[in-house]
């Protein structure tokens, strides 16, 4: 059943014209005081696809994400979002274009309620972010919409709780709800299933599949079963460079990739 869903998703994404990629990196590089964490990376993410970025620890995946989302200044190369050069843009402005990232560890606003966490996003769209003279109740008109996003991830029942009180899996779900409230076209998810128990992994995977409808997802993922289930394309990185790219089946049969993973025994391929 899962396999059939995957193929239908794949068909939908590739059928809708695999034209210009929504996100493209050209010869992207980043040096940290001489050490090249990312070097000469070419990457194209097709619109509507779920694209995985894999590789052993320290391969440069998170650095890549930081470069693409402009949290780090690249030392070399260019980044294009819908063929627009965003290499020199500020991170907040990249987010406003519709490319929203998550973080390797869960990123919520811990001392704010779940409702407030989502509402923070809606405030910007509603133009209710700089009014220092308005009372708190001016925000209640965004509550309904915020609840709707919480409902999508099954958290509307806990809307009034502080985010810090949630178990880890729910924090990741809250993060997704917050990201969705941005109505992004492209989601960059850094290890969304990391640190989750078996059941939570399934749920978050299912959630990603659902939110990917009509959107593009680029995700760093270690869990190969997650990748095989939902990803259309996989890029393998090693020591800051792209080692291979293709479908999951192609990549997992690539001898170079197998060697790379064998070399990093703890990591392994969790199939």
């Amino acid at each position, binding site marked *: 059943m899962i396999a059939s869903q995957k193929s239908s998703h794949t068909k939908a994404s590739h059928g809708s014209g695999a034209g210009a990629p929504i996100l493209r990196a050209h010869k992207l590089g980043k040096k940290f005081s001489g050490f090249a964490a990312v070097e000469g990376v070419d990457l194209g993410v097709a619109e509507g696809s779920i694209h995985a970025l894999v590789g052993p620890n320290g391969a440069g995946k998170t650095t890549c994400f930081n470069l693409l989302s402009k949290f780090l200044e690249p030392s070399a190369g260019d980044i294009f979002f819908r063929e627009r050069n965003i290499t020199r843009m500020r991170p907040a402005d990249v987010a406003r274009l519709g490319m929203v990232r998550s973080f390797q560890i869960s990123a919520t606003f811990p001392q704010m309620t779940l409702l407030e966490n989502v509402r*923070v996003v809606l405030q910007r769209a509603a133009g209710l972010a700089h009014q*220092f003279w308005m009372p708190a109740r001016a925000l209640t008109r965004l509550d309904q919409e915020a609840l709707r996003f919480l409902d999508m991830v099954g958290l509307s029942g806990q809307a009034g709780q502080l985010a810090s009180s949630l178990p880890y899996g729910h924090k990741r779900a809250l993060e997704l709800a917050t990201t969705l409230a941005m109505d992004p076209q492209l989601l960059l998810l850094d290890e969304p299933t990391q640190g989750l128990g078996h059941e939570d992994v399934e749920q978050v995977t299912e959630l990603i599949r659902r939110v990917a409808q009509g959107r593009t997802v680029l995700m760093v993922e270690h869990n190969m079963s997650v990748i095989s289930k939902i990803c259309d394309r996989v890029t393998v990185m090693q020591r800051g460079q792209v080692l291979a790219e293709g479908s999951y089946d192609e990549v997992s049969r690539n001898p170079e990739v197998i060697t790379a993973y064998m070399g990093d025994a703890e990591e392994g391929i969790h199939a």
Partner: protein
Amino acid sequence: MSWRSKAQLSTMWLILLLAVAAPWLGMYPVLGMRIMSFALFACAFNLMAGYTGLISFGHAALFGGAGYVTGLALTSWGWPTPAGIMFGVFVALVIGLAMGVLAVRRYGIYFSMVTLALAQIVYFYCLQADFTGGEDGLQGIPRGTLFGLSLQSDRVMYYVMLVVFVASWWFIRRIVRSPFGQILQAVRENEPRAISLGYRVNRYKLGMFLLSAGFAGLAGAMKAVIMGFETLTDVHWSTSGMVILLTLVGGLGTDLGPILGAVIITVLEEKMGAIGHFLEHITGVHWFASLNDNVSMINGAIFVLCVLLFRRGIVGTFNARWGGARAASG
């Protein structure tokens, strides 16, 4: 309404009632006004420090700078009192803009250092400039009138200051809870996440710095009008240190903490002589009589005691212990 907000509301009304009645209960109005100007200054400082986590070490430049220019406008230019005060606030905003633009992109100790460095420039300017009177200070600032009401009497001035203080405090409290305040809370709790949600966080921090500067300027301008003079002490870095101390003792990021801090420190400074004599009298230790000369040492001791006993300041600790989940905000 929860038990907590009820308790908080009653505390506020009680404080207000006490403040209204104080001059009739034998409190020296000038002391009350000094407390209120320092409390307002601390509330302004707290707006930045408590809600962005950035500790300014240069707020004296805003407080004292506004005091000087208000004094200048009232003495040399003969401006009406409200105009002079507004001019003080305006100049504090200008200094705040210069400081904020350079400082808000830094974090932690670097933020503090940039604000301190800029405040030192203001200090040395005030030391050199003619209008400030250098070491002698700017003397003889007239209180003037407010809407035809003479401010000469200490009691009248006291109630004017009380109105200014309560209105400012109410507005500051509202800022913290406003839509803008929500964004700042988000930035404080997880700045990278706020950026990834499309917020240009430095603009929000700068906005908060300006609001803080404006209220610090208002406090300084009011103090100059109340006391009738302005001296280098108010632009000195030790005043920046004092406002940090007041706020931390009372409780950083709380509504009432800065007020409590200002009351404790100001009253102690004022009454140290009497307290010293009292302690000498009951213990027979002569050293206590010299307490008055060691005010900064006593302040230091209070600070150490507070850090050890009340890590979040007095109000912050009280809220954390008895306040329920959202302790930090009360």
